[in-house]
């Protein structure tokens, strides 16, 4: 009973201003340890605001979410432990933390590790298993797929079902979608092109370009930068607004209006255009380990291309500045303001989760990026 009351109280708080209380840890039965967001809007707002916070601010925010341990926290612990191990000449991924929290990262094909979640902004809001509840859906996010289940009142084992399943079950309200990334789709049939440029004889897939730069003798430091266009499909609640004619009994006239309704849809898509920067140090035995710093910078221009240039129902500027028209060249010049990290993403643009309106959105091949790791003499350009 106490738990139920607490849950009700928590749910009623979620429309409040984010900085005061955007999300609460569910203390309901089964000792749930994930965050709940009342709606997609609340979740999107939380992601946008948390993405502006430094790691110190995120640490404080997470401490306020009692009982909740984020994937970000464990991931950073693994990074720290691996850095210490690397400095001591030990092999990568042999630290205690790397063994304990193997779920929170995936070994990167470029060396080191990457968070086991496709949208790196989510690191702070999903738990170590990638679980978060948004509206009536419970989701499990990972780098390669998104699993969602429609939560029904009284059902207690939906999180367990979500974790256990690898296949969709429509009857059970459970969906599984692969994450589509321009770097490499789930089948691996779209390879990234190293450092390729628009004028290259090999035409790169837009949004898949990659570069790397080294310094030290022999190579000791390394920056890698790559574009990524994400398509994340999942279930959720979609707000659909349509124009209609409504009778006004006061005036006695029919008036145009827009009526909106929230629809549960198991198949929604969100697009995101971004530039990733990762910084690494080579260990004595030749392997590359993540190396945190606050010296990452990037500048350049970007724009989107799409088979349909209508981006609807909405989109947001990322953390590289305000965007007026994502299909026109936009200059950006950004510096890492989050504090020490080896895993940084600068987001240009992100769409609203929707069932239609976006079609094959990509970063245009004319986009340019100059990335610098200050203090380590590493840089590369796309």
């Amino acid at each position, binding site marked *: 009973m106490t738990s139920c009351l607490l849950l009700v109280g928590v749910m009623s708080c979620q429309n409040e201003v984010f900085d005061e209380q955007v999300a609460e840890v569910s203390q309901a039965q089964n000792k749930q340890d994930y965050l709940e967001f009342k709606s997609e809007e609340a979740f999107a707002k939380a992601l946008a605001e948390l993405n502006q916070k430094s790691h110190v601010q995120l640490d404080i925010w997470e401490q306020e979410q009692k009982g909740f341990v984020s994937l970000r926290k464990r991931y950073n612990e693994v990074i720290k432990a691996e850095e210490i191990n690397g400095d001591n*000449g030990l092999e990568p991924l042999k630290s205690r933390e790397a063994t304990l929290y193997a779920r929170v990262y995936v070994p990167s094909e470029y060396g080191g590790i990457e968070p086991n979640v496709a949208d790196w902004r989510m690191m702070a809001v999903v738990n170590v298993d990638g679980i978060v509840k948004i509206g009536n859906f419970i989701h499990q996010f990972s780098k390669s797929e998104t699993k969602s289940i429609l939560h029904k009142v009284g059902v207690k084992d939906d999180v367990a079902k979500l974790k256990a399943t690898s296949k969709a079950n429509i009857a059970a309200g459970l969906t599984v979608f692969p994450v589509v990334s321009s770097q490499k789709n789930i089948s691996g049939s779209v390879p990234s*092109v*190293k450092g390729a*440029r628009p004028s290259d004889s090999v035409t790169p897939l837009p949004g898949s370009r990659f570069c790397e730069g080294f310094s*030290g003798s*022999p*190579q000791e430091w390394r920056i890698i930068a790559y574009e990524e266009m994400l398509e994340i499909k999942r279930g959720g609640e979609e707000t659909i607004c349509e124009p209609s004619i409504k009778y006004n009994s006061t005036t006695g006239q029919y008036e145009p209006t827009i009526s909106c309704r929230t629809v549960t849809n198991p198949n929604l898509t969100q697009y995101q255009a971004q530039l990733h920067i990762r910084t690494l140090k080579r260990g004595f035995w030749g392997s590359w380990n993540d190396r945190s710093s606050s010296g990452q910078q990037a500048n350049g*221009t970007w724009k989107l291309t799409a088979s349909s240039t209508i981006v609807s129902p909405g989109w947001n500027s990322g953390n590289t500045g305000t965007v007026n028209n994502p299909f026109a060249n936009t200059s950006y010049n950004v510096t890492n303001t989050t504090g020490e990290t080896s895993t940084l993403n600068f987001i240009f643009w992100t769409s609203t989760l929707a069932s239609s309106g976006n079609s094959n959105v990509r970063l245009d091949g004319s986009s340019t990026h100059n990335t610098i790791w200050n203090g380590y003499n590493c840089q590369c350009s796309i």
Partner: protein
Amino acid sequence: MGRRVVTPTHDINFLMRNLLFLLVVCSVSGCIQAVDIDGPEYVKKPVVFGILHPDSLLKVNLTWSRPATTTNPALSIKNAEVTFFENGTPLGESVDKEDGNYSLPVRPKTGRSYKVEIKISALPLITAEDYIPRWMDTNLYVSDRNPSNTNSNPDITYTLKNFLPDNSTLWMGLYSTQYFPDGWAPGCIVGGQIQPGCELIIRKITGDSYVTTASPIFDSFNGFFDPLSNRFSNSSPARVRADILADEDTPTVKFAAFNQGEDRWGQVKRPNDTRPFGENILEITFAGPAYDRYLKSALLAYQNRLTDFDGNLFSPFAEPSPVYSNVTNGLGIFGARNGRYIVLKLNTTYQLTP
């Protein structure tokens, strides 16, 4: 649930264990002690430095060695008698003796040995010798950008035609040019013209100039194998293994750059970048036996460091590495080389004849 029963024997054992632990802690902490080890006693010695090349005059610079405790500039030796020899025949005594620099208006020839004899009063005769390698008939090819290489850099193929070993060693380095002064020097190029006071220099930074290969054709002392890219990588300059050249009549060295080139290999100019582009440069050097040993030992000494600039472990096997000297009764190096700098362009073949 059982309850642990504590007996007097347990207490004694417990106390003994703790006492033993304390004793070990005290004795171990007592082992930490700063130890000063005196270095070798400073003995003032003459230092000879001269790297001969066919396009430059015979020249050496003479200074006195300095104690390790000073940062003062080295004092030049001004009253020495310096004689140069070609294949054992004296060419004459140096006529120019400014600031410790001694030269002779003679350019060394390839395929010959050069020796220097230096007389300084009250010191034994100082001598050093090296050999100027011949330039081989060679061919250089730069491909188009290759997506299978890091940063899609082009393949660079260097072929030695009718290779004749002559006791020299081949070194190769990838560098770039850039405009100086003032770093990138915005304003050095106005309307496509180089402005006065700006010059194009070759930027040789050991820390960010690399060559990478699919097979281990370069000496591994300043390189490593990267399992991620499945390629070998060496800092520039890289030393071509002698056995690679000796195995074939027409040996070929194929490699690529790791970092992006200075001009991004002819790509479009980037926005927000006011600096003019430089060029990608390949340095090809045939090193004489003494210069080869000196260069390798000097680079090895730099590689052989215990910590990096962050103070973290760089190499647990680091140890002092002496730098080679071919100077009898002195320090330094009197070496010889024969090299060329090539400005690299995509899809281009270069005939590099002797």
